[in-house]
């Protein structure tokens, strides 16, 4: 019981809206209850909030913000973790902690932009193909989707990033191009079965416009899986982004990125182990966080229970 009361306050904290009526309050309370039943979800939420905080306020939090630009200080090069450099310094004397924090920024920015483009495109195509299932529109959209899904995602992303100029924008384009089909397929399945339901038939009979049916009748019923997948996907986008930057197809130095820091550090193993270990731990932290968070969102939106 004590838990519930504090949960209520927390909910209000997280989704702070001043116009909360009793009804929405109650809904939020149920959502929070479902979300927080698994303690890992709360851990995930904390990690997600910390990551966002670090990403947004990176220039303020980082002790040496100038270390993400062209910067060399050979006197301080290769220092092990100590009080003034808690993650140590790299071979150019740059603070690893600062660079890790800025990598959070790049990684989160990447997943936000990738998902902001890939999800609407994928969902829209899935809705259309599902609603017109059995027609040539369905055939064209879904066969193109099949082609994209027929390649291992990482390989397609690498190939697209490779033909473009190596930088953060290219890697975002590459990951976006390979990401939308997963949403198309997800929504397609749901939209196909929903479009046979009576409430959709009803709307058609009344003479509702196609966009109205797609966005007001079908889409709202697909939202839970979409949101769940999005929460889980943030971690995967970060992972693929790290892989791209690991091989040199992502963010270019001196701007830091997780993959690039790990591959740089690997050359100075085992003497300067902190150059590799801390970025690696940071990736693990953020991916794990978004996975737990995504599981929590799934529990929360799951109508079955």
């Amino acid at each position: 019981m004590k838990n519930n009361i504090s949960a209520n306050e927390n909910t209000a904290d997280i989704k702070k809206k001043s116009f909360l009526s009793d009804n929405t309050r109650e809904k939020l309370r149920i959502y929070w209850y479902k979300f927080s039943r698994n303690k890992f979800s709360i851990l995930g939420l904390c990690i997600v909030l910390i990551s966002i905080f670090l990403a947004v306020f990176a220039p303020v939090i980082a002790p040496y913000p100038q270390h993400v630009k062209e910067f060399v200080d050979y006197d301080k090069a290769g220092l092990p973790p100590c009080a003034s450099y808690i993650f140590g310094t790299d071979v150019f004397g740059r603070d690893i902690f600062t660079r890790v924090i800025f990598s959070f920024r790049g990684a989160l920015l990447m997943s936000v932009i990738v998902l902001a483009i890939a999800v609407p495109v994928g969902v829209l195509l899935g809705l259309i193909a599902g609603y017109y299932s059995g027609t040539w529109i369905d055939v064209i959209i879904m066969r193109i989707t099949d082609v994209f899904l027929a390649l291992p995602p990482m390989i397609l992303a690498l190939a697209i990033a490779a033909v473009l100029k190596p930088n953060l924008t290219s890697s975002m384009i590459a990951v976006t191009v390979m990401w939308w089909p997963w949403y198309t397929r997800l929504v397609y399945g749901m939209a196909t079965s929903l479009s046979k339901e009576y409430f959709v038939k009803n709307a058609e009979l009344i003479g509702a416009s196609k966009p109205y049916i797609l966005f007001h009748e079908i889409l709202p019923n697909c939202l839970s899986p979409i949101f769940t997948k999005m929460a889980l996907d943030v971690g995967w986008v970060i992972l693929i982004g790290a892989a791209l930057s690991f091989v040199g197809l992502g963010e270019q130095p001196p701007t830091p990125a997780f993959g690039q820091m790990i591959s740089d550090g690997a050359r100075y193993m085992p003497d300067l182990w902190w150059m590799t270990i801390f970025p690696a731990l940071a990736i693990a932290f953020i991916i794990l966080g978004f996975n737990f968070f995504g599981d929590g969102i799934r529990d929360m939106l799951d109508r079955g229970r």
Partner: protein
Amino acid sequence: MLKYIIKRLFQGIFVVIGISILIFIISRVVPGDPARMALGPRAPQFAVDELRKEMNLDKPLPVQYYYWFKGVIKGDFGKSLNTKRPVITDVKEFLPATLELALLSGFLFIIFATIIGLLSAQYRDTWVDGLTRILSYVGIAIPSFVVAVLLLLIFGYLWPVIPTLGRLSSNITPPPTITGLITVDSLITGNFAAFFDALKHLILPAIALAIGPLFQEARILRSALIDNINKEYISVVTGYGLPKGVIMRKHLLKPSFIPVVSVMGLDFASLMGNAFLVESIFNWPGLSRYGINAMLNKDLNAISAVIIIYGVIFLIVNIIVDLIIAWLDPRIRLGGE
């Protein structure tokens, strides 16, 4: 069943054509003039024009695609900019190493996922179960290229008992090429020194690739087993007095493997993607390392070849996965509809 296989193969052909169009678009339309890229920025204009004609680049795109795809079917992917050899020769040289690695790590994760899944279902809610749960989170969180770097650190510097780079030690005579898989070749020719050496070189990259999906699959198997053991039909067959082994094999394991096998198909895709990084870290002379080098040097012919080959491999894997699921699941095998 046969009809199903034929249908899948037929669909597969269309997907491969689709992939080839996609790759063609990526490699021809995006980066500008392939002839100029092949010859370098300082080549004289007439040489570039000549090559353009030779590569059919002066014709409209669909015609270009037709000529290119005709070559691809015959295995002619053009010349590699990097190695200056026909791409197909490179592919023949590097593909076996990748297959060897992928097969071993696939084998590892199937065997160990099964064992660990069974153990954690048997000893559920004990420390065994808890440990696999934690390890499955670790497997999600630590990307395989990081695992590879860490393994390199441990076995390359701290505890050098296993070789970390390449396919075979330099003091071992490689067995004659029969299948191209060194372990298999050396077994066929009875060269056990080479076999064990090759296996030692294989084991670290294979672990780096297998460890991530392994524990997740064990978790999926565990929950499927626990779900199924409480089903009524298990009580029924137990009531009939069937021997425990038969119940275990026929009634419990078989249905529990259905979700595991479908996830394994997906995991194999990510394994193939991760191989690109892991092979370069361990300097493994496979097709993925070749692919990464091609990508870093914008070697378009090689990139297209590698991607089409991976597309075909993934397609075959998917068909195999579907067949295994059909075999496991009578609803599909007997055609439920």
